[in-house]
């Protein structure tokens, strides 16, 4: 059971009851080639028939989406960075980081763990999907996700997030975002292959002198047992709005139950004690 809640887990789909599942599917988002076009956002919305998410300028560079949510399953972050410089010096110090964020499809997915209805479930591809015919909108998953991904949609009442296009990949197709991505910043495939590719790309970038390049969510020893959707970043995760070291809350669940058991016993004991004595 501890394996099922925390730590490296190799047979994720098997652990969820699938005999002989297909290879674990994943996204590798290489932000070093992202051009911030947002094709992923639109392709996702078209395929999944997601409603628009409001029409407001945020003032956050070219990001008017803001964050992932019930009606945004791909979100492109724009981060402007520059070193101080003199007028006329050009903008050699300017960096404009772009990154398409998505549900991480964690090995240990808190949203799925805490879902009381079984609406959130693990697919045979080891992805995590909400069943809209089941979800009753309890919103537990919203508080549980360490990445702030899943949310309940106002007016609809159910929780929504990226499905990694479960319907498409089940039919041997690529998820809509990965298919549309003009520069292959979003790559879809068997997770093992993607991890290998990502490590090679990282080595390449390091060799080019891009020392700040790093993988995020690729390590199966991290707090969520590694992500099904992982990233190559060019700065600290929190710069992109990602938690630096997320841990699935369920890791501590056994301990929590112990403390709760103790508290329950204490409560019962206190009641009992209160009835001791005469009157």
């Amino acid at each position, binding site marked *: 059971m501890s394996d099922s809640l925390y730590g490296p887990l190799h047979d994720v*789909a098997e652990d969820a009851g699938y005999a002989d599942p297909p290879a674990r599917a994943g996204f590798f988002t290489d932000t070093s080639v992202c051009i911030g076009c947002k094709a992923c956002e639109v392709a996702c919305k*078209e395929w999944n028939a997601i409603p628009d998410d409001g029409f407001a300028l945020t003032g956050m560079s070219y990001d008017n989406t803001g964050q992932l949510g019930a009606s945004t399953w791909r979100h492109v972050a724009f981060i402007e960075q520059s070193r101080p410089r003199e007028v006329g010096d050009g903008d050699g110090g300017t960096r404009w980081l772009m990154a398409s964020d998505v549900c991480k499809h964690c090995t240990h997915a808190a949203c799925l763990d805490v879902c009381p209805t079984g609406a959130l479930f693990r697919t045979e591809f080891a992805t995590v999907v909400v069943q809209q015919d*089941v979800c009753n909108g309890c919103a537990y998953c919203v508080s549980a996700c360490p990445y702030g991904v899943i949310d309940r949609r106002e007016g609809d009442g159910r929780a929504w997030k990226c499905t990694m296009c479960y319907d498409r990949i089940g039919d041997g197709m690529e998820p809509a975002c990965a298919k*549309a991505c003009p520069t292959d910043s979003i790559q879809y495939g068997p997770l093992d292959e993607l991890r290998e590719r990502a490590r090679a790309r990282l080595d390449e970038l390091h060799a080019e002198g891009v020392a700040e390049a790093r993988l995020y969510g690729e390590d199966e020893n991290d707090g969520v047992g590694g992500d099904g959707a992982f990233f190559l970043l060019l700065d600290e995760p929190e710069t992109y709005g990602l938690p630096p070291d997320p841990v699935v809350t369920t890791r501590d669940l056994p301990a929590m139950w112990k403390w709760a058991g103790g508290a329950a016993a204490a409560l019962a004991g206190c009641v009992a004690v209160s009835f001791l004595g005469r009157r």
Partner: protein
Amino acid sequence: MFNKRVGIEYWPVLRQLTGSDRLGRGKAARSKDTDALRARTGQADRVVESVCPYCAVGCGQKVYVKDEKVIQIEGDPNSPISRGRLCPKGSASKQLVTSPGRQTKVLYRRPHGTDWESLDLDEAMDMIADRVVDARRSGWEDTYEGKPVRRTMGIASLGGATLDNEENYLIKKLWSALGAIQIENQARI
């Protein structure tokens, strides 16, 4: 609680107890809809090869039609130009052609009018044809500064860069035959 269309055997708790997914986080929790899920592209009546209507890169598109409705437009992986990829605009093509905001009725605004009125397409075409004939005549020039020009300055047209070659061809052909010369498109802009 459990799907009413199916029996109690679809109650996940039972499947948790009897199957391999004891924690109820995977196989046991699947709903009937989930089991029936397929990509809608697979149900298309036909798939039509097309080209993105936005910029001039010319990305290949596949248009999926079911029940005479476009149900999906996505990149054509066979295209050596785009390799199946689309930008945000190309990816929004389905909304472009199916958006409820799209105008599908002829509208008419009479001179000094304050609102649109509806108009029959056939009638509109007749009215436009009448006006073309009239404007052509009234703007007609046989000569200009003594030189033969045989043209009309009464009609002008702008547009073409978003149209098909065949359409541009007929536009240029008809306007030229009518003697109209102020025929322009976005390429000038």
